[in-house]
């Protein structure tokens, strides 16, 4: 027998402001999913993510890989007849997954490595990012030719940059409570 899902007063009011968007207005027309470039790789499609938020089944979304497949392209938002900011609601799920340590995705690891670099250097240091990511993904051989070509063309710097206002980044990270390594 399948479980009966119900929207409760609590889940409805949570959905009404989820991620600053009015997820409660979603009527499952699926326009978002039909135009989503990542839907084919999501185990829970964007419209179904909205439904689960309405039902208060957020825990399941936090451990999903679907939220990390979202590219943030904003196609769904610009087409939704109810103007629901779907990517913002998905961002909210990502934030909760990250801060509760539930995020199980290479993308979450990527964001941590990326931001760790920004905290240290202020600017993106691509080569450092690529190397740390290769270690995290245990993927040492892909794109090495491409990387070498970029270096030859003077497109990748070999040394990180640093800000003149020293300590500015560290302070910003501390004040905004974002704990990256």
């Amino acid at each position: 027998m399948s479980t009966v899902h119900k929207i409760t007063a609590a889940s409805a009011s949570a959905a009404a402001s989820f991620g600053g968007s009015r997820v409660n207005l979603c009527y499952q027309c699926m326009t978002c999913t039909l135009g989503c470039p990542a839907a084919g790789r999501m185990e829970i499609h964007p419209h179904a993510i909205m439904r689960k938020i309405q039902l208060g089944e957020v825990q399941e979304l936090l451990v999903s890989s679907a939220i990390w497949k979202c590219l943030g392209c904003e196609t769904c938002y610009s087409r939704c007849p109810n103007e629901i900011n779907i990517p913002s609601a998905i961002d909210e799920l990502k934030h909760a997954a990250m801060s509760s340590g539930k995020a199980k995705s290479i993308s979450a690891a990527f964001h941590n490595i990326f931001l760790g670099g920004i905290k240290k250097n202020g600017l993106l240091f691509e080569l450092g990012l690529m190397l740390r990511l290769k270690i995290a993904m245990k993927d040492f051989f892909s794109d090495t030719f491409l990387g070498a070509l970029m270096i030859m063309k003077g497109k990748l710097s070999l040394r990180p940059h640093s800000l003149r206002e020293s300590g500015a980044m560290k302070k910003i990270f501390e004040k905004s409570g974002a704990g990256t390594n």
Partner: protein
Amino acid sequence: MKYAFYPGCAGETTAREYNSSTLAVCSAMGIELVEMSDWNCCGASSAHSTSRSLAHALTGRNLAIAEKQAMPMAAICPACFVRMRETCLQVKNGSLSKDEISSLIDKPYTASFDVRHILDIVTAETEAVKKLVVKPLKGLRAAAYYGCYLVRPRELTGFDDTENPVSMDNLLESLGADAADWGGKVDCCGGSGSFTDRSMVKELAGKISDSAREVHADVIVSACGLCQANLETRQSGKNALPVVYFTELMGLAFGLDARKWFKKHIINPIPVFKKRGLL
């Protein structure tokens, strides 16, 4: 007009030729771009995916620096542009208070100046562009690619149309090129997954280059360093289609030395321009 110029991280590295061609064509048009002092990374999708305060703080510091220079900000990267503009608009409409942002970044910020993308700035001056064309790009069939963040979400970018934008097409026509009508204009290239989901990015970039080939485009024209790199390196292997920046084409039509920019590309666009008698 003077702008505080934000090149962004890619403008310093993988999109070097976008940065230098922008500076060259703007200087030809009399648009003064003053590089911001000591700017930092906008945080990109990583900050946005991690924490709202962090995302606003990283963009806010840059906005405060531009505000101190008393100029609107001009950005070349659509992703940086949309992130900065989001913080700027939220402070303007009060959903993020001036005190809150100023305390996060330890600098005053009052959202007194606008944030604009360079495509928006140059396409607002079509007459000035036309006057500078000395070598019309006759015979060049170009597919204008806008991607996501120039046009979406509408209330943030305030630029052109979300489904069928035309400003870059009109610009290409005023340079003398033939702007192709095609279906890939605003499709996502998968840029934010370029490090973590290569197969998805290959599929998306492949579809975009295939649609451009279907309408017999000679080049795809981009306004984003990340999309450009993605489309150049992840499109399907056969008959690789060069991906150039709109600023490089402006430079070529203005009679500037565009060859030095084209040499930086992974897919060499020089043969296409030679074939059309433009180089």
